[in-house]
């Protein structure tokens, strides 16, 4: 079994990071009593790979003009995003206690005004973030930045028309510095994507829109890393193409009773279920659970930081 990735990154460490993200997601959601565990658990490896090495970002140099940018378009899965940020040194671990609480920086959907250096754009209403990612990619090209833009969307989210406008924009403007990651778990709130509004064959769609499109196992960190790091392809005129990575994921991954169940899109587990979930997820080597702040410390459900 392989233990170092394409960039010499420690694969086991990334897997453990994914495990820790899962633990954090469950603890954050059960802690506050609401949130979206299903999609967040399913994207644990995606976030671990991104913040465990793929993204060229540095907590000590937040304004580096050549840094990579990450845009979370399917904002509802932000528990995993905040967890990854904290594990990568961008947020204090204990701040995860404030998730979805009054006055917190960790809003129920990412809010740029609360975290201007970490959240490129506020998301929540599906289909909005991707266009913003394109705009950032255009600006980076204009400025000659070496930074790339990676944007994550949900599969259900791709039913929004604005996503298809953005797909056309990225192709037209030859955004080779943009990678779109689709967390394809086949589920959305009302059930199977296939039955709600089918997206398949998605690769053929991307290709007919002039994109390069790769597919990856969304829970295999090596597969993801390879897909995220690939250099852009060029079209017959020598211009770079944007790249889509369809990451096949499992809603609720890692928690057997949640796996592949649409009801876990946005339901909060009971404390007992949360215990069971944490047991199933197991411990992450080299990582620790964030410390619980008592409600007293948090002064009646309020976040510690403004």
């Amino acid at each position, binding site marked *: 079994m392989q233990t170092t990735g394409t960039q010499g990154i420690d694969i086991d460490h990334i897997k453990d990071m994914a495990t820790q993200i899962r633990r954090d997601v469950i603890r954050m959601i059960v802690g506050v009593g609401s*949130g979206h565990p299903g999609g967040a658990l399913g994207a644990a490896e995606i976030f671990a790979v991104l913040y465990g090495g793929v993204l060229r970002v540095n907590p000590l140099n937040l304004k580096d003009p050549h840094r990579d940018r990450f845009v979370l378009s399917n904002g509802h899965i932000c528990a995993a995003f905040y967890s990854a940020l904290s594990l990568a040194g961008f947020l204090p671990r204990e701040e995860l206690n404030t998730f979805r*609480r*009054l*006055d917190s920086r960790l*809003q129920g959907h990412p*809010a740029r005004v609360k975290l201007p250096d970490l959240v490129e754009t506020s*998301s929540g209403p599906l289909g909005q973030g991707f266009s913003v990612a394109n705009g950032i990619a255009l600006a980076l090209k204009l400025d000659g930045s070496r930074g790339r833009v990676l944007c994550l969307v949900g599969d259900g989210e791709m039913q*929004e028309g604005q996503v298809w406008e953005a797909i056309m924009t990225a192709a037209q403007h030859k955004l080779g510095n943009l990678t779109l990651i689709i967390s394809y778990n086949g589920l959305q709130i*009302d059930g199977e994507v296939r039955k709600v509004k089918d997206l398949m064959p998605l690769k053929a769609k991307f290709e007919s829109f002039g994109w390069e499109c790769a597919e990856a196992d969304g829970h295999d960190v090596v597969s993801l890393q390879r897909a995220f790091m690939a250099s852009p392809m060029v079209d017959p005129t020598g211009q770079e193409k944007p790249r889509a990575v369809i990451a096949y994921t499992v809603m609720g991954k890692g928690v057997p009773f949640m796996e592949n169940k649409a009801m876990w899109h946005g339901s909060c587990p009971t404390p007992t279920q949360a215990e069971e979930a944490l047991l199933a997820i197991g411990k992450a080597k080299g990582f620790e659970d964030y410390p619980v702040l008592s409600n007293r410390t948090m002064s009646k459900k309020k976040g510690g930081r403004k």
Partner: protein
Amino acid sequence: MIFEKPTPIRDGFGKALLELGEKNPRVVVLTADLSEAIRVHWFAEKYPKRFFQMGIAESDMMGTAAGLAVAGKIPFVTTFAAFATSLAHTPVRVSVAYNQANVKIATSHGGVCVGGDGATHQSIEDIALMRVLPGMTIVVPCDANEAYKATLVAAEYPGPLYLRLGRVATPIFTNGNTSFQIGKAQVLEQGTDLAIIACGAMVGVALEASNRLRQKGIHARVINMHTIKPIDQLAVVKAARECGAIVTIEEHSIIGGLGSAVTELVSEKCPVPVERVGVRDVFGESGEPDEILSKYGLTAQNLVGACRRVLNRLGRGRDV
């Protein structure tokens, strides 16, 4: 009486829809991946052929509803308030309002009592966005009973109609059996010292504030303005004439909604001091509904404060 205990306002809608399914074969229902949140899953189960799952595509859903209406159906199109009124604004404007298509738009998540989801999901703009459209009727029931009745009436009422339904459990103030008339406000408490005009979940807050005021000898008239457009001009002008001061309260921006409708009207017919209680032109945030109501100034205490201010302006605020 249909509901007696505190109930989510949207439940009154879901229940009425189920009855409409039986009563009126022209009624069809559309949703954009939010069946249960807006309580159309009951209808979907019972009348699958007349239920259209549209996926996460609110603009297209709104246009499709207009098409169904043009072809003779009575579509109820459902999603969160922000997605119906902001995201799908152009289809509402062009295909529903300008066409005078018989579409009923029913939403949850209007206002700030949304819980952890935060600002993007808290529509404090929906009433303003709908009110500016010619021919749009706007109804904001104050409890599950009123939502139930309003839904039944909406199905018979010709033309575009917006129905804003609260998400959280709300006490019951109205009787499930009395008649409900679009455009006809309901005076819940008599009084002539000042008038409080409220809609939706804020009607409860108004009643509580009125109680507190009464303890200090101030008799407020409390008006449940369930129809924001066309607003009950008579009730507003009468309140201005007889009470001399008005306070409005709504779970919406102080811009463009009930408060604006009232100030437009009194400025034209009978200028009196008006204080508008609502979200003060800022975005919302995550938190528990009661925490948010406090932080954003939508409590009985805030309302009493506004009443004091408006009475002070008339030189009659000493006692509050």
